[in-house]
């Protein structure tokens, strides 16, 4: 077993020279280290934090934001081994094939490859996130056996399924640092440094290669890493920050930090009425079935996305709600007209996660303020377009049509103004898109292999490379993409 190394014990002035430096010990960095175990590569992983939360380290994340209200930058991620899996909710859902397509109604859409590139890695990714057997859209039969889903008439929305990372008693899902700490110690070709913050990337004179990475610990301890190759796995926000703070690494086309995204999670977007009053438990909570923890969600079909020009969204049933006199009148009127029995009708709030359209002006930039290590802090300019809200509204309106057409219930849309949407807005803590992938350096920071355009030995891992975001939660997908990167790195000449 290789004990983790406290960076504060490394003599100042030391120059370390691994084959591969992994910067960041979150789900991407840990996945990469695990995937490259037992290869001939000598690997070093540098994690800013320790094994537990530390306020001084966490404060390095602090930044500011303007525009649409967003979470504090030091509250929406976690800076110790395991990264943001340390506050992960465990929601898993793979991307759909359409997520990779260039969609003519979605500006800046299109990945350099299709879902088939990622499919070989999903099984291993599913295992790493400990989400049980692969069910997802195949779960309908098993879930229907537990209780019938609310009937929907044919249309643009269907009942889909989330899976959840394994829960241990009252402990929330797989925290990568805790779960894989011992596995990392057993990797013979890995040295893992804690309390090791990357503060600068230094390129060669012609800027075609990474030469060194400066590492600093809180308290002033500093040393240098001179790797053959490096992978930035700091998360979408911090990768962009380090690149911008290092003189604009990869930013020759002013793209680093742009196209930031998260999944807006507006609360109580609609009220769903079940005429029978019945809603299976799997709409509200994850249920153990068919070897997995599964929860229902409403998703737009690919055909509806194309026809109605909407993006992805995942709608969940949340809590029972009270109805006023007009609500009851609407239910009576609709149910009687359809000959439906609404005598036991009950109503529930809906929540959701939305895919945003990529927007270059939703971006991170450096400010004049610096953190305790001397790195400039970030400012997020946050935006959500009216069209993003409208597309989701169109989707749940279609859900309402389908429920009513099936005679199983009906739906009320709760927001019809931008101010109402914004007042209900929360966020998924899913940082996406600041170092987007594109084959054209003028449209993306990294290429199809996650290598930074123009820098032969520097890569980016994680959801920051997603050029479009899907509505699916990112962890499972970024782990799969990182496994693909690992295969690429294995194939490179020494």
């Amino acid at each position: 077993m290789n004990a983790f190394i406290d960076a504060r014990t490394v003599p100042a002035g030391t120059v370390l020279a691994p084959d591969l430096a992994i910067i960041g010990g979150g789900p991407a960095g840990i996945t990469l280290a695990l995937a490259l175990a037992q290869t001939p590569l000598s690997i070093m992983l540098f994690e800013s934090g320790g094994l537990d939360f530390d306020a001084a380290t966490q404060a390095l994340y602090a930044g500011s934001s303007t525009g649409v209200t967003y979470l504090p930058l030091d509250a929406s991620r976690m800076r110790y081994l395991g990264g943001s899996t340390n506050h992960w909710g465990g929601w898993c859902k793979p991307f759909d094939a359409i997520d990779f397509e260039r969609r003519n109604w979605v500006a800046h859409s299109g990945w350099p490859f299709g879902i088939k590139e990622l499919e070989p890695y999903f099984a291993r990714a599913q295992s790493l996130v400990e989400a049980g057997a692969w069910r997802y859209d195949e779960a309908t039969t098993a879930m229907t056996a537990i209780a019938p889903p609310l009937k929907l008439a044919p249309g643009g929305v269907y009942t889909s399924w989330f899976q959840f990372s394994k829960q241990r008693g009252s402990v929330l899902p797989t925290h990568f640092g805790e779960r894989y700490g011992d596995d990392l110690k057993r990797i013979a070709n890995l040295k893992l440094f804690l309390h090791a913050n990357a503060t600068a990337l230094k390129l060669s004179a012609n800027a075609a290669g990474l030469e060194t990475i400066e590492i600093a610990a809180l308290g002033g301890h500093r040393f240098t890493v001179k790797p053959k190759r490096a992978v930035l796995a700091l998360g979408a926000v911090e990768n962009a920050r380090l690149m911008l703070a290092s003189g604009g690494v990869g930013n020759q086309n002013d793209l680093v930090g742009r196209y930031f995204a998260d999944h807006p999670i507006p609360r109580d977007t609609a009220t769903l009425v079940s005429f029978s009053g019945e809603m299976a438990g799997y709409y509200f909570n994850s249920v153990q079935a068919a070897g997995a923890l599964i929860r229902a969600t409403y998703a737009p079909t690919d055909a509806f996305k194309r026809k109605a020009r909407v993006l992805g969204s995942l709608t969940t049933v949340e809590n029972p709600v009270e109805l006023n006199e007009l609500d009851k009148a609407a239910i009576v009127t609709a149910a009687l007209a359809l000959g439906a029995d609404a005598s036991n009708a009950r109503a529930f709030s809906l929540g959701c996660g939305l895919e945003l359209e990529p927007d270059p002006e939703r971006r991170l930039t450096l400010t004049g303020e610096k953190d305790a290590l001397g790195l400039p802090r970030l400012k997020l300019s946050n935006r959500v377009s009216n069209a993003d809200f409208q597309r989701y509204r169109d989707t749940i309106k279609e859900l309402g049509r389908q429920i009513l057409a099936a005679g199983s219930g009906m739906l009320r849309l709760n927001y019809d103004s931008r101010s109402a949407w914004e007042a209900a807005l929360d966020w998924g803590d899913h940082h996406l898109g600041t170092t987007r992938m594109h084959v054209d350096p003028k449209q993306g920071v990294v290429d199809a292999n996650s290598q930074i355009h123009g820098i032969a030995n520097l890569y980016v891992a994680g959801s920051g490379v997603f050029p479009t975001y899907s509505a699916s939660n990112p962890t499972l997908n970024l782990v799969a993409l990182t496994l693909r990167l690992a295969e690429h790195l294995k194939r490179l000449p020494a």
Partner: protein
Amino acid sequence: MSDPTRDRGGFSRRAVTIGGGIAVALGLTAVGVTVPRLFGKHYRKSPYDDLLAQLIDRDAAAKVGKAALQGGGIFPDPADLARELRGRLERRSLADVTASDLDQSNLVEVRGWVLPQTLVLLSVLAAEQDG
């Protein structure tokens, strides 16, 4: 031996709908919904009673219609509205027309409730008459 709900040896669509409607409305008292009067509330006579008779709970529909009017929707005057509705309902039941509206996405939002258009128009007519 005569059963008032029987028509030529089977349930007529109208009778079934009314019977079902009463059952629904009775059941909804459990969650505090206004119950239509079983023995008929007397409404002021109007030229549109043939249409309004399609509404099993006219009071509830009038509430929906009132909300639609207050919501700023632009609706034809009652005579034109009635002409339009008679055209739609002349040979088809409200249930059929409602189902057809839903199939064709002929929807109107009333305070956010996603409702079939014909049902909302009929509700607006009820609100205008019962105002």
